[in-house]
């Protein structure tokens, strides 16, 4: 396959990746006539599109976050089903990132392109696992594309939290989590490690936890922090958005041990700067090993890298004999290469 061929129908615009024959954008950065959305995170799903195509889970998230502004017409495409848009066949395949997250598989004139969206490879009970799709062109994310990012086992990180809870029974543990995905993932990991006590959650996390429950993801007993006495929060686990740790909000907690669940916690300086006492390396993005192994599995003729540290992943792929470029350069004149 000649990747030049794909460049004739897929190009990068100021709004993001645009599929010309299908007349749709993928994760456009602002309102558009037609958008295919990989998942519900704010840097991918934006309000005010005319028509939106996404998995039922992603649409539920968008409705919950944007209400009326989620889009004029919302079309659900379940995992594995194919739809034709202007001669381009489009399939959404699980990405293993968060509830509803999908890779976008496009086929046009014998050329198969996969846009990974955000993804990870390790097990996550809150969403179906990533399915590698052999393709001609693999558009991959690169959030943690440096070889220093190798996430440890989730269970070891959760055990670290539970050990600390046992060691400091007179304190509360407040874990900073993003409201969508990470919060529910941490809850599900806690349950998997046998933690059955109620987990106390910040008000900003409630709506999305409800949504996950409604979508059939069991999170165990949850209680709001609001109105609970300091005394009653001793020895308890509290989940809150990362910013709440330094808010006046946190003063209601008894001597909180400040934890944070994020892939960035792998780097000590990052954790220290954020005033984190208990860094938990729990990520919803592929780490270096997952990124590089996935490339080997999907065996693309060419890799387009986006969303993070492009240069390192391109370097690695090139050393391994792949053709790789930064997605931001696609469609620009590169005759010289």
């Amino acid at each position: 396959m000649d990747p030049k061929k794909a460049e004739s129908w897929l190009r990068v615009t100021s709004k993001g990746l645009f599929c010309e024959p299908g007349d749709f954008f993928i994760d456009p950065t602002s309102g558009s006539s037609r958008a295919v959305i990989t998942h519900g995170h704010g840097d991918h799903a934006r309000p005010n599109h005319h028509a939106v195509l996404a998995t039922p889970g992603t649409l539920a998230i968008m409705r919950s976050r944007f209400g009326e502004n989620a889009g004029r017409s919302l079309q659900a495409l379940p995992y594995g089903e194919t739809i034709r848009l202007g001669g381009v066949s489009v399939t959404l395949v699980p990405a293993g990132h968060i509830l509803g997250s999908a890779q976008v598989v496009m086929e046009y004139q014998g050329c198969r392109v996969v846009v990974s969206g955000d993804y990870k490879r390790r097990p996550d009970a809150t969403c179906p696992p990533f399915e590698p799709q052999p393709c001609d062109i693999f558009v991959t994310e690169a959030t943690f594309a440096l070889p220093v990012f190798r996430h440890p086992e989730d269970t070891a990180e959760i055990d670290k939290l539970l050990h600390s809870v046992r060691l400091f029974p007179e304190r509360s543990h407040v874990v900073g989590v993003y409201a969508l995905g990470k919060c529910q993932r941490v809850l599900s990991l806690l349950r998997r490690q046998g933690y059955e006590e109620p987990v106390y959650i910040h008000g900003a996390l409630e709506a999305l936890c409800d949504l996950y429950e409604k979508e059939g993801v069991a999170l165990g007993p949850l209680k709001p922090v609001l109105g609970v006495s300091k005394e009653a929060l001793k020895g308890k686990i509290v989940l809150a958005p990362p910013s709440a740790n330094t808010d006046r909000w946190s003063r209601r907690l008894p001597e909180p041990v400040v934890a944070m669940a994020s892939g960035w916690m792998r780097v000590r300086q990052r954790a220290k700067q954020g005033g984190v006492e208990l860094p938990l390396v729990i990520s919803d993005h592929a780490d270096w090993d997952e990124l590089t192994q996935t490339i080997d599995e999907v065996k693309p003729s060419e890799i387009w890298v986006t969303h993070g540290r492009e240069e390192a992943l391109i370097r690695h792929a090139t050393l391994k004999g792949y053709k790789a470029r930064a997605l931001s350069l696609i469609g620009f004149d590169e005759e010289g290469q």
Partner: protein
Amino acid sequence: MNRFAALLDGLVFTPSRNGKLRLMTDYFATTPDPERGWALAALTGDLNFREAKAGQIRELVLARVDPELFGWSYDFVGDLAETVSLIWPTPEKVDVLPTPGLAEIVEKLRSTRRGDVGVLMAGWLDALDASGRWALLKLVTGGLRVGVSARLAKTALAELGKVDLDRIEEVWHGLEAPYEALFAWLDGRAPKPEVGDRPTFSPLMLANPIEAEELVALDPAAYFAEWKWDGIRVQLVSRGAEKRLYSRTGDDVGRAFPDILESVPDGVVLDGELLVLREGEVAPFNDLQQRLNRKLASAKMLSDFPAWVRLYDMLEAEGEDLRPLPLSERRVRLENWYRAGTRPRLDLSPLIAFSSWEELGELRDGARERGIEGLMLKRKDWAYVSGRPKGPWFKWKRGALTLDTVLMYAQRGHGKRSSFYSDYTFGVWRDGELVPVGKAYFGFTDEELLLLDKWVRNNTTNRYGPVREVSPGLVLEVAFDSVHRSTRHKSGVAMRFPRIHRIRWDKPHPEADTLETLSKLVT
């Protein structure tokens, strides 16, 4: 090793003293010998390897990782040991490699020639996880800094064994890693270890602060008075042909003071103040700081900053423990010993003659010369008792200096205070502009902290990460012990022990003090 690494991880991130203590006590209680003993030695700084050089480590990793990728990673992480620990490619058959214990690592490093350390290291790096690799690399490159003092590690031991910290200090310098006899005692399996005539540290007798009003209840004739010198309290021990110079907390600081150690004769334990003296005059505290900052002293340092110990007590002479004797007798023994020979680098802290507290108070207020912080009052009939007994010893400090300053910046605190702006940078006026002159983060009550935090949030003009700049408007009366010239500060002066004395909600900020006023207080 992985458990030790997990402990270090915890210590690095836990800001509070109590949190660190809990982590260490838990580790010592649940880790077997000799692993925990070597860990203890690493924490107290008693593990010294023929260090592996950074270049050696870099070479090991570049044999396995693309230099370009390594370079970008190093730029991102910013620390060599951490970069290597994270980037080290795990070999396929990781399961068959046993994780090395700390004891094994210590033993092998000690018995391996420097040239062979690389091979050894590579094998261990393969077998350890990222935390373990970090701990190992920090250990062998001598960069293990986890915010734990030897004192704090020993405090954890005291909690583990439910014994007084002083009982541990008494034997500490007579023991060696991996401290199995010590742990056996702390576990309650054996008696306290015997240390014979090693030059161990005798925990110090400490004084309580006192104010003039409280003195009237005391009989002046029952007390000796001495100047309170502005140096570092030390204990000089010379026993069994070994000599040590200990800090107040029992840290051995002798390596930086060969001039002192050289001049101590055999068979004494002395208590005194470490000072830099020039022709009998106490040099500024900064001069002593120069010496304290160095692990080893160069010949130039030794001649530029001559160190002395000004003696005020004698705890042992010729193998005889003098501590049970009353101070009046110990003083006689000290003076007789001092006069019986030449004592270079040692002098006596004189006793001050006085007959009433009023008279002594006048002497105290009149003594403005450098090096004097106030007075020490010591009961003549008391034995030398370690710790801080109530009654026998008092420090009667000269009144603190104070200054009205203006709050300029506030920074969020750590741990319990992480939601509060609790670290304050304050300034004084110079030509109509505020110049920062210091930083304080204590001296106020919890209620005042709430008010200060609120004021900072309501008067923020700029934010830089955890720091907020505030509009000038709040006057803080700052207390401090003294002021020194400093080239490191924009203002040219630095305060010692600044703390918030009062919050002057009432005072208009243009009426705060000037840099000129502050500069006049420089000693």
